[in-house]
């Protein structure tokens, strides 16, 4: 019977009384290191916020106040006239219609470009990660390298090619260009995401007789929700913020907001209206900022999943 009796509890002796301190959590002490961390973060925040603050207050000041040179001080008489001017009356050379034209141009470029590049990227990612037909690695390697090569190498021949098919300086042309150059990141994004799905799922679908398209539409696409969101965020901000392609391929009628903004601000004729310029700048940044603040962590995930190997 002795083998099933408890090992004796050790005798308690000479211990401090039960509720003496130290008891419970260690009282929070504010260490210099802790203060340093927060000080660093606050100073860094001010550094990052300062330009936006300056833009905002400048855009609300009349020019008479701006000429005093008090960059950081709040407007004494706030006015929204610069915003109205930026939106509807700011001049680029001879046209004085504000940046509103650019907003609508940007939207017209944005929507088809985002849809097309995501659709192609998803199909590529699916084919490259599950079906891996001959040449998969080659196509992927070229796309990947293509993403990092300066666009300047492609530009002139592309201009010629688009001229030949009559798309240069037209909306379909700029959409095609965005689709072409969005392809590497979209393919990488979807390929990495699909590579993380269990391949057995795909094998089971094949055994069940699924074809390329049925598996894509009924199995893979319904599982792609998160990555579609990420891809949309990436493409919307990326295409909206584009300057180079818009400048070269869009044509005078379709100039996107970024190009128009630069033309407004850096126009060499007339008096510089800094308040109008800043209002126009904020207006141009508004769409991507909105996407950024609404999407939150998804935006970060887009950066990470596009950049990190899957």
């Amino acid at each position: 019977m002795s083998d099933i009796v408890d090992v004796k509890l050790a005798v308690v002796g000479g211990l401090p009384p039960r509720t003496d301190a130290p008891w419970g959590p260690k009282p929070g002490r504010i260490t210099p290191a802790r203060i340093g961390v927060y000080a660093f973060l606050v100073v860094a925040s001010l550094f990052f916020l300062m330009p936006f603050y300056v833009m905002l207050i400048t855009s609300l000041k009349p020019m008479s106040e701006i000429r005093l040179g008090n960059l950081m001080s709040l407007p004494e008489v706030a006015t929204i006239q610069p915003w109205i001017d930026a939106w509807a009356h700011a001049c680029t050379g001879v046209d004085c219609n504000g940046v509103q034209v650019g907003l609508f141009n940007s939207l017209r470029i944005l929507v088809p470009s985002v849809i097309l590049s995501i659709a192609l990227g998803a199909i590529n990612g699916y084919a490259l990660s599950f079906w891996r037909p001959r040449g998969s690695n080659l196509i992927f390697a070229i796309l990947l390298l293509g993403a990092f090569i300066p666009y300047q190498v492609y530009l002139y021949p592309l201009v010629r090619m688009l001229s030949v098919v009559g798309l240069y300086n037209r909306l379909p042309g700029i959409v095609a260009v965005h689709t072409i150059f969005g392809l590497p990141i979209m393919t990488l994004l979807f390929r990495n995401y699909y590579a993380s799905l269990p391949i057995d799922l795909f094998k089971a679908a094949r055994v069940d007789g699924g074809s390329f398209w049925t598996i894509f539409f009924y199995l893979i696409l319904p599982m792609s929700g998160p990555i579609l969101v990420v891809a949309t965020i990436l493409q919307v901000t990326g295409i909206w913020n584009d300057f180079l392609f818009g400048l070269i391929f869009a044509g005078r009628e379709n100039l996107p907001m970024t190009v128009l903004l630069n033309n407004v601000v850096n126009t060499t004729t007339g008096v510089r209206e800094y308040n109008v310029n800043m209002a126009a700048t904020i207006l141009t940044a508004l769409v991507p900022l909105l996407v950024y603040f609404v999407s939150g962590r998804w935006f970060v995930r887009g950066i990470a999943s596009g950049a990190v190997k899957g």
Partner: protein
Amino acid sequence: MEPSVVVRDLHIRFGALDVIRNMNLEIAEGEFLVLLGPSGCGKSTLLNAIAGLITVTGGQVIIKGKNVTWEEPKDRGIAMVFQSYALYPQMTARGNLSFGLKMAGVPKAEIAKRVARASEILQIEALLDRKPSALSGGQRQRVAIGRALVRDVDVFLFDEPLSNLDAKLRSELRVEIKRLHQNLGNTMIYVTHDQIEALTLADRIAIMKGGEIQQLAAPKTVFHRPANLFVAGFIGSPAMNFIPGAVEESENGKVFRFAGNTVPLGAYEGSHRLTTCPDAILGVRPEHVTIHADAADGIAAMVELDEPMGSESLVWLKLADKPFTVKTTAEHGLHNGQPVKLVFDIHRASLFDKASGVRL
């Protein structure tokens, strides 16, 4: 003698969740205590609190008579071994062993001595100049134990150290840890969800559930005299059979009645203290039942399935329309569908109150 580690009125809350509830625990000098329980029972949290890696909500931790509740982990006189090994990836095994000592300002000669001693004990001398990435899982864990050894402390904490290893390595290293404890005689607190590890290593096992200790006793006690239904069901593989019924008075003393059967309880451990109980559960381990093909006495059952396991065999039966398992020799000669009689070893059985789950 002074206890090595004392946990007193310990309470840990994460947000609205009480992970440890007012726990009291005393661990003797040189004792090997295993904290065992399903995931989420608070066993790792308790270990981390002893190590000083998480802040406690209330209560105290006393190590070697010193209240260390507010002390930094490095000042508590403990060493710890982790499930993921947690070796510093860019350093050699030797670097891993000596880094902490270097930081603590231990003289070079002393570091070399301690590293030599630890690597001799663990037989990792040949691995000292390799980086963790060049080591196998078992070797990594040896180095991790070595890093704990060189700290020259009295209390060792193990957080599921063998869970990432395959079955064969696990049993090898288990023996090694047991040998280590025998040779060093340090206090060891060991967290695991593996009951074999707990039963083989421990001086005492603390079985935890919901932030509370269900039973704290030697492995044999936990196995043979589980304090409640949870412990009885958790310990033992294959699991204990539970039969609902009632403890009643008869002319031959107390009996357990269920589904028309009567089991005399005369041989039950402490049967003289037994009171009647209309809603009870009889727990019988599969090892503690014998099958008789043609006995007159015993409880009627029917063979349904045979699971041979080498030298032994697990027989699945139907008893009062419920599944019932019996562990027996492989050469039992039974066939499916055969009616048999079962005899329980009541001395080694357990009775529980159905409502509270507490052992009767």
